[in-house]
């Protein structure tokens, strides 16, 4: 029987030429450079010095960690497609790191939500690139060739351009292309892969998008999934625990494991390490179990304080609380309680616009 080995359990010889952390390669390159008495350091090294870590997901697909929310980068012959853009203040470092991966222009930035740690670099990164569409007609179509195309769910645009946002965000920080349906396909040639956008209504917020790269078989989950904290369910911005669980189950519907429930579709979480479907299944189980507990307590008439005091997340806190995240177990319990108490998953997808909320401090 022939099968693909696990991405991190290759044969020793396969591992040398295949999957591996860029950091290890950097170390080897550094050693080789020093031994050869070369003063020219490999370009990837600068990425390591900038607090942003690069993990190779596929041959031309990378996960960048340390700029806020995780950033996914697909390098293709015509440029770079990004999913999310990190925090504003990390834009320069993120751009420098991207330049070590490819000198090509950034063509597209897909935002998984309106959170500042996922959209902060939109303007700066986008300004360095340009959409393919505008290439030969920039003189006729004003602004068409200036800057990368920013794509997101319509609710993201609503949130970012709401009158309540003071001062208003620069227009180039906001999505120029939006969708409002359940599912949208982006063409292979222009985006580097057949990209599917799946709306996840009323989950983390009301504007979450699951981004699936079909050919690369990589799914970017945004803040629907994290390995370092409970899911941030922003009830005020249309989020809800039932929508969150639906979204996690949707991710599991899309993802295929390779062998014995590991490998296969690789999943980039909003925060934390690279994952596959089994990691999402553990997370889905945890969220569902806690939802069921809080639901049962609500049925028994318990108040929010009583529910919090019962510590319904206790056996999971060692995994998802206290990892430097400001989003505590109590905050998660409160969000679950409030979203269930509203007797509906959350507000409608196209709810009146509210100002984007600053991401919790721990979401770095």
């Amino acid at each position: 029987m022939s099968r693909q080995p696990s991405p991190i359990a290759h044969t020793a010889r396969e591992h040398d030429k295949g999957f591996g952390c860029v950091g290890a390669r950097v170390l080897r390159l550094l050693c080789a450079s020093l031994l050869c008495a070369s003063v020219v350091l490999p370009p990837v090294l600068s990425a390591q010095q900038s607090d942003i870590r690069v993990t190779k997901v596929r041959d031309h697909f990378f996960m960048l960690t340390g700029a806020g929310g995780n950033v996914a980068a697909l390098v293709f012959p015509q440029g770079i497609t990004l999913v999310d853009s990190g925090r504003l203040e990390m834009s320069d470092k993120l751009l420098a790191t991207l330049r070590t991966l490819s000198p090509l222009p950034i063509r597209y930035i897909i935002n998984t939500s309106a959170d500042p740690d996922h959209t902060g670099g939109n303007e700066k990164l986008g300004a360095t690139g340009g959409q393919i569409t505008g290439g030969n007609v920039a003189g006729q179509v004003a602004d068409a060739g200036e800057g990368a195309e920013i794509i997101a769910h319509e609710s993201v645009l609503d949130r970012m351009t709401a009158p309540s946002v003071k001062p208003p965000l620069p227009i180039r920080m906001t999505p120029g292309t939006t969708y409002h349906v359940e599912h949208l396909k982006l063409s292979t040639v222009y985006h580097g892969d057949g990209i599917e956008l799946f709306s996840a209504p009323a989950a983390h917020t009301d504007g979450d998008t699951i981004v699936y790269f079909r050919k690369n078989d990589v799914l970017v989950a945004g803040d629907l999934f994290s390995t370092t904290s409970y899911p941030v369910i922003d009830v005020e911005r249309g989020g809800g625990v039932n929508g969150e669980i639906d979204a996690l189950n949707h991710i599991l519907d899309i993802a295929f494991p390779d062998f014995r429930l590991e490998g296969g579709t690789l999943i980039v979480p909003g925060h934390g390490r690279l994952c596959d479907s089994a990691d999402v299944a553990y997370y889905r189980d945890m969220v569902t179990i806690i939802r069921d507990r809080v639901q049962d307590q609500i049925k028994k008439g318990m108040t929010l304080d009583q529910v919090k005091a019962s510590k319904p997340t206790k056996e999971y806190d060692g995994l998802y609380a206290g990892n430097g995240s400001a989003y505590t177990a109590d905050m998660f319990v409160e969000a679950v309680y409030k979203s269930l108490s509203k007797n509906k998953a959350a507000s409608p997808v196209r709810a009146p616009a509210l100002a984007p909320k600053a991401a919790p401090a721990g979401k770095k």
Partner: protein
Amino acid sequence: MEPAGGDHRWRPHGSPTGSRPEQERMHKLIQCAVVGSALALVLGVRPAAAQVDFSGEWAPRFHEDQPERVPGPELGDYLGIPISEAARLRADNWEASIQTLPEWQCRPHSADYIWRGPSQLTIRKEEDPLTREIIAFHAEWLRSIDNTIYLDDRPHPSEDALHSWGGFATGKWEGDMLTVTVTHLKEGYVRRNGLPRSDRATVTEHWMRHGDFLTVVTIVNDPVYLTEPFIRSTDYELDLHQHVPPYPCEMVTEIERPRGTIPHHLPGTNTQVQEFSERYEIPFEATRGGAETSYPDYRKKLKQMPLPARTRPRIEAQ
């Protein structure tokens, strides 16, 4: 025991104040050593020579913990395991039916648990085709994944890398013993009754071969679900008639249930966790496990505890 191939360390035969020819010879030797060391650095560090060949077909021996290793442990039996309060809570709320979910039907035992599983083991060695040095062992059990142990001094991946059931394992020789360090594990379990082991855990293994017998000691450190290292030793015997067959696993609908249903017990509602105590007439407090219950002195305390009332048929210990 002398390492395979003997000790090739250079030893001077003469005193530092020996004759001139001897000094010149030593000088040349030192020059050769310096040049050789530099070449070794430039060409890369070679893997340490393998001391013992672990490759072969190994049959498990069930003289220890047979009830756990073949039929599976009793619900609520946490005896002798240094679990944390969080682990105890998760196991108490665990419902075995969760394993019927499609996402879990084909889950293999993780690298730390599989040694104590019920399956036969095959260990293959991977050699560099040119130098014939062993650069990795591959341990695979029935229904497991390929657990690769790299022997070529490669670093472990970054904290951002994917985790797997086998984790990322590297081996170092300590005389005839192979010491393996495993990181990047997916979440697993220390027992098949819901006691979890987190994905933050690391494992140290010591592989020892005595003729046709293989003994492996596993030491699990888990900052979330263990309060002390959890140490077990397991024995295998070489079996020339064994062959581990493939085990393709297909997911099926075992139980029809509404989409999104996750089997579990609400806190405080699982009465099954008391069955083990009642059947074996072991004080319930002792069955709750924890580091204290893993030490011999605990037997004294055990004798002071009241026995549970027998409400279920007694099952004689096997």
